[in-house]
């Protein structure tokens, strides 16, 4: 076990971890940040997406030691300072972009990364960007609507 330090949601953190500790495990078990979900653990589903230095990655497929020193943002870091939902989160709620909610942390993190790169994406661009995020419940339509709404574009009413 060796100590790993990094910045998570703006705070400096450190914890002991083995070589094999995954970033997802470091966040969930090491730091108690269980908002990052582990769905498949095989880099297919995207439930575990977090940002490392601003870029979305699948935290189940990154070793914690390999991102020591990095700036990591998880779903816990997406709310506004006063605790209210952030723009992307609020859009998911408003447009019913979730049902069971298991995929939602990863969906929100991928969507936020898309909007940072491309503030006004088309529907096709949203669908392409979310290719690595799987949802078993919603059928994706409301997720796509939520992302378009979060980008400030008008979306058709229900």
């Amino acid at each position, binding site marked *: 076990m*060796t100590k790993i330090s990094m910045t998570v949601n703006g705070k400096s953190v450190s914890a002991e971890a*083995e*070589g*094999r500790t*995954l970033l997802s495990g470091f966040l969930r078990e090491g730091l108690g940040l269980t908002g990052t979900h582990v769905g498949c*653990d*095989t*880099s297919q589903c*995207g439930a575990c*997406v977090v940002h*490392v230095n601003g*870029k*979305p*990655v*699948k935290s189940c*497929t*990154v*070793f914690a*030691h*390999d991102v*020591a020193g990095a700036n990591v943002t998880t779903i816990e870091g997406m709310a506004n300072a006063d605790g209210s939902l952030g723009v992307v989160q609020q859009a998911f709620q408003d447009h019913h972009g979730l049902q069971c909610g298991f995929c939602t942390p990863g969906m929100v993190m*991928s969507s936020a*990364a*898309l909007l940072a790169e491309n503030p006004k994406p088309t529907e096709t661009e949203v669908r392409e*960007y979310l*290719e*690595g*995020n799987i949802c078993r419940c919603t059928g994706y339509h409301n997720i796509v609507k939520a992302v378009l709404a979060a980008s400030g574009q008008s979306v058709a009413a229900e």
Partner: protein
Amino acid sequence: MYNFEFVKPASIAEATAALESDGAQALSGGQTLLPTMKQRLAAPDVLVSLTGIAEMQGVCLGDVGLHIGAATPHAVVAREAAAHYPALAKLAGGIGDPAVRNRGTIGGSVANNDPAACYPSAVLASGATVVTNRRRIAADDYFQGLFTTALEEGEFITQVLFPIPQKAAYVKFNQPASRFALAAVFVAKFADGVRVAVTGASNGGVFRWAEAEAALSANFSADALAGLSVDADDMISDLHGTAAYRANLVKVLTGRAVSAA
């Protein structure tokens, strides 16, 4: 996953020393190696991360053409190669999904030589040079069949050097579940001839389609392929497509690549 010692050298020289120890293995983006280790199909004693080595990062123009550091993620190649070698940038931007592209690297992909991977076709069709910590290897000597390359024990890729063709295109037919290539073709036209490399299709891994190269060198148009056919004998056959289907797909995709170039 079995435990291991994690080391992260800062230079090629340090990585060379670390990879000489018994049971050491290179780690780049981990997008292939981590799943393999979870299944215990790989169990290194020491894992040597190559992602902290500045000399192995980035895209730049050099004497061969476009020089790409082996630890450069797909997303960076997609962005930075776009102005110089658009077909290569498009290939990198079509690998997996955005999260995979932010971690997965060209060196890891070329080292792994998965029969359905994208990069090997670009390396072979461009006649690129694979640079390692020990030597330079021409693409034609580098790929040696399914998951097999010219790399020796302790040797690792530091850079890939791509000559820039006059025209090129990569056309990939996605296997929709895995997002790997069911078959894909990279066509590159140089002043001295055309090179055609096929991935995803053959039991022998990436290969050059010599008949198409000859026909396209004489006449660079999709019509030049009309009389040709691909031998289905050594094609991959699985639930996603039969050998005959893949053989036909290779011809169709080659034609599309020529038209798109």
